[in-house]
């Protein structure tokens, strides 16, 4: 499904997965795609930045959200950091964070069950293809990922934006306005 992605769109997907590693999440969700779009050059980045979306704030909100797990466990007397430290002592850094990497590097070509993408994140990528088709574009750029993301509209990424006071529909308009005229 990635054949039609532009280099910049691929860079966004790649960035989303590396953000998963940086933030110690097992999954790649819509929030990773959002932060990836906000930190990788492209039309999506232009639109988001132009609308006032700040990558640093998005990242902060993600960290706060993930931190919720640790806090919830603390409330019942479990120190997640201590558990993590103990496990990493034996199994190495990041042992708790990830499923094992599949044999081949090109995991994104494998069946859906083998990708770390959440169902919603997958949906966003599927919708990006549909957005491109609707616009009669024969490629998928970062703008189509953003449109897909905004259309999906229900993941953590969307929640972070709406909680920060952004209007998804308005962002959609801005994105459509930034789509290059068909050549």
């Amino acid at each position, binding site marked *: 499904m990635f054949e039609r992605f532009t280099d910049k769109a691929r860079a966004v997907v790649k960035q989303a997965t590396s953000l998963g590693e940086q933030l110690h999440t097992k999954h790649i969700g819509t929030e990773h795609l959002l932060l990836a779009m906000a930190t990788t050059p492209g039309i999506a980045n232009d639109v988001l930045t132009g609308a006032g979306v700040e990558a640093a704030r998005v990242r902060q909100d993600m960290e706060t959200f993930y931190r919720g*797990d640790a806090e919830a466990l603390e409330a019942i007397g479990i120190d997640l950091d201590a558990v993590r430290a103990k496990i990493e002592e034996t199994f190495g850094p990041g*042992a*708790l964070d990830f499923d094992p990497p599949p044999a081949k590097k090109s995991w994104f070509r494998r069946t859906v069950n083998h990708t770390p993408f959440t169902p919603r994140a997958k949906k966003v990528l599927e919708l990006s293809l549909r957005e491109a088709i609707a616009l009669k574009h024969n490629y998928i750029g970062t703008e189509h990922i953003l449109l897909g993301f905004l259309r999906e509209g229900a993941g953590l990424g969307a929640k972070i934006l709406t909680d920060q006071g952004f209007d998804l529909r308005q962002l959609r308009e801005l994105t459509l306005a930034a789509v290059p005229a068909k050549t």
Partner: protein
Amino acid sequence: MTEAKDLAAAASSTDPRTGLRAVVALRKLLESLEALQVRNARKHGWSWQEIAEVLQVSKQAVHKKHAGRET
């Protein structure tokens, strides 16, 4: 210090949200741990049957859940 107080309050809280949130977090931790430990057992040459016995589930259940993740 207020944070510690908040946490103490959360621990004794009867708010279902707090309790349920802890369940979710615990489940996530459990899933990660299980995947890690099963992987380790396989690396040490354990059969699915042996793993299943210790985990107190059926061999099929363990296999179905974890075999796909093997590298």
